[in-house]
């Protein structure tokens, strides 16, 4: 039977006219020796479905903060992640495992994508400013401790 250790993340499905639709994700179980368990799952309520749909919706390249548009906030995300390495880095636009100048270029080239015109700035940091910024970040990063690479939205 299910719902015991190891099943976390498993799917609970509702049969809708022969099509099994995902309704919940297994979370935890209280084990009762001798016969089984009580198992709890997170129901995919409208709020949870909304979070899932908004998260998996196609995002423009360079949208490092996953808000649906490429704007100044994504530059700040790139700045914060600069020089970090690993998987799952928010500002690793080219998915090469490091956040570097190439990811800045991706952000710059896509600036304004997905952002309502009324809210989009028309200027991006210029190359000279970028050089100064990179130098500053290099200094900062020399003493910066490892930070978690995952993204909590």
């Amino acid at each position, binding site marked *: 039977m299910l719902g015991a250790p190891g099943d976390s993340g498993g799917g609970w499905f509702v049969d809708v006219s022969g099509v099994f639709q995902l309704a919940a994700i297994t*979370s935890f179980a209280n084990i009762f020796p001798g016969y089984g368990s009580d198992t709890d799952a997170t129901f995919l309520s409208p709020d949870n479905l909304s979070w899932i749909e908004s998260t998996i919706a196609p995002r423009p390249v360079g949208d490092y903060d996953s808000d649906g548009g490429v704007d100044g906030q994504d530059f700040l995300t790139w700045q914060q992640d600069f020089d970090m390495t690993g998987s799952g880095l928010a500002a690793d636009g080219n998915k090469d495992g490091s956040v570097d100048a190439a990811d800045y270029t991706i952000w710059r080239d896509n600036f304004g994508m997905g952002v309502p015109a009324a809210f989009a700035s028309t200027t991006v940091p210029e190359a000279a400013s970028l050089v100064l910024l990179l130098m500053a970040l290099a200094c900062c990063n020399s003493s910066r401790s490892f930070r978690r690479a995952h993204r909590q939205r």
Partner: protein
Amino acid sequence: MGTVDGGVATFGGSSVLINEHWVLTAAHALIANDGKLKSFSEGYRVGVTDNFLNGLGENQHATEWFLHPDYLSIGNGPDLALLYFSNPFTTVILTQMYEGSVQVGNALSMVGYGQPGTPSTGLLPIDGNRRAGVNSLSGIDRPIGYIEAEFRGPSESGF
């Protein structure tokens, strides 16, 4: 279904492929109750397999991961996380999301790699097999958003 894993010998939990690029799993499969990421040396790897002890089948490492913003700990907030894979899974059957409501007594089909057993055997050690079973919904905790299914032997109350 797949596994959230840091290596063939390390099992983090079950998960559901909701399309070619995205996997839905439990947040606590990625993050411990102290709020720290679980330290899988290889990162989060998901495989599509019938038995994770025999191999992960088609598998790859997650490119990005997202925790539900309201998740705090097990039983406290939506225990949900999404994993993104830049390369699509090919052995995938698209999962439709259920948008309706549920009631106590509804039959739900559960799929995962959980511990096996029957009322006569009790819980048995994990053998790596993916299984499916049907149980009826026995409780709904609306404020938290959790639903519950009880597994009882014939001689137990609530069977």
